[in-house]
């Protein structure tokens, strides 16, 4: 458990430094982090120094406060971190003196002169020859991160708590893609909104709309209205003569429904429009149908299509409905309506 939190701390500690370098270096930083975690179990000084620095950085940013509270032991080592930083600076100052004596060994490990000097100075002060031999390959990469640490720390003090106006969101709240950097001004607002949404979900206040209607009383009224053959309402004012007018009326009804219904009903309505088009194609000229306004969309869609088509084309349009709905579950009312249609024809 503690090792996992420490890994999170190290990941958050290294990635801001990685922003200073090239993309390839970023991958190297991640690999280094993994190796560093494994090597920290072997040697205590590396582990304590590394953890302390990450906590110190967290407090400076203000974004790692939850982790800082969860790890009170590391906070006590902040003084040790400062002492080790000063020690590193002193050793860097003495680099010219010690470089000459250890030159033969350093030549084998690093290529750049800067890395050479840094590697020699850090190795001579922090590790014994015996432990250096044990760590082996991971040693230069681990040492190479410290000059970036110094540069980063200097940059940090220059720009106060914000790094070019960006703050990293906590890892446990963000997505698995990795750390997300946001505008510093919006950080607290985003955290507050996340808590509000989480609270709404926990209280089960946010429920998806599952009713095909918005108002209960209007639904009851529509159910009580008398319906004619095909399921349309009786006693409506509009009557249609030709196919052109029928098309206009259908579009008008569709438009009105789109105004009032939500996304789920709209999706259902589009499949219904396809059904009406297919019914027009099968029948050359449709009989005289009176236009009507339907509140309950399920009953209209089911009954209207089946009454207009033959038995074979009814099956075809039914398949079209399923394809148009893209695997939508047919509501029980629709199935009952279909059953009623079959009974009527028999």
């Amino acid at each position: 458990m503690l090792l996992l939190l420490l890994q999170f701390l190290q990941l958050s500690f290294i990635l801001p430094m990685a922003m200073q370098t090239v993309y390839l270096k970023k991958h190297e930083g991640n690999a280094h982090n993994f190796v560093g975690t494994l090597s920290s179990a072997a040697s205590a000084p590396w582990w304590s120094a590394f953890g302390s620095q990450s906590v110190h950085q967290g407090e400076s940013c203000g974004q790692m406060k939850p982790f800082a509270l969860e790890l009170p032991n590391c906070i006590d080592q902040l003084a040790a971190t400062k002492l080790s930083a000063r020690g590193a600076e002193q050793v860097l100052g003495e680099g010219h003196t010690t470089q000459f004596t250890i030159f033969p060994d350093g030549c084998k490990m690093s290529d750049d002169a800067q890395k050479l000097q840094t590697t020699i100075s850090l190795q001579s002060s922090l590790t014994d020859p015996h432990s250096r031999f044990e760590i082996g390959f991971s040693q230069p990469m681990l040492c190479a991160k410290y000059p970036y640490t110094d540069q980063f720390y200097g940059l940090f003090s220059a720009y106060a708590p914000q790094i070019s106006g960006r703050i990293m969101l906590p890892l446990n709240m963000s997505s698995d893609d990795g750390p997300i950097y946001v505008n510093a001004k919006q950080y607290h607002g985003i955290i507050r909104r996340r808590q509000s949404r989480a609270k709404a979900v926990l209280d089960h206040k946010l429920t998806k709309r599952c009713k095909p209607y918005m108002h209960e009383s209007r639904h009851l009224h529509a159910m009580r209205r008398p319906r004619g053959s095909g399921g349309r309402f009786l006693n409506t004012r509009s009557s249609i003569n030709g196919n052109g007018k029928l098309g206009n009326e259908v579009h008008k009804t569709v438009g009105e429904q789109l105004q009032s219904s939500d996304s789920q009903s709209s999706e259902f309505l589009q499949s219904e429009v396809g059904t009406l088009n297919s019914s027009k194609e099968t029948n050359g000229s449709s009989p005289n149908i009176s236009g009507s306004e339907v509140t309950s969309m399920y009953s209209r869609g089911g009954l209207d299509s089946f009454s207009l088509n033959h038995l074979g084309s009814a099956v075809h349009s039914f398949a079209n409905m399923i394809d148009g709905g893209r695997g939508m579950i047919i509501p029980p009312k629709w199935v009952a309506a279909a059953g009623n249609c079959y009974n009527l024809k028999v």
Partner: protein
Amino acid sequence: MMDNVGGSSSNIAENSGIIREQDRLLPIANVGKIMKQILPPNAKISKESKETMQECVSEFISFVTSEASEKCRKERRKTVNGDDICWALGSLGFDDYAEPLRRYLQRYREQELDRANNPPKRG
């Protein structure tokens, strides 16, 4: 759309304490109209685009309103007014939007004053 005035008691009890989707999001038709204003006349907008924009604009409204509400809470005021919204936009880094909104708010208040001083004639 107005609420159900003559609804039964069970209907009122059923809806209390529940945030329905149509209360959480803006109406999708209004969002589509606003999106259509900026596009050429023959452009078409898919329903998925409208739904995505519905989520985005609704969350943005909650985001800005939450910032303004926090300011009112600190100052122990109960009403969030237009100035608080303009301040919230500025404090969140949307300075380019805060200034046009402040001008809009000023002209809106002038219109309200004119309407109050010169009520429309009836009869």
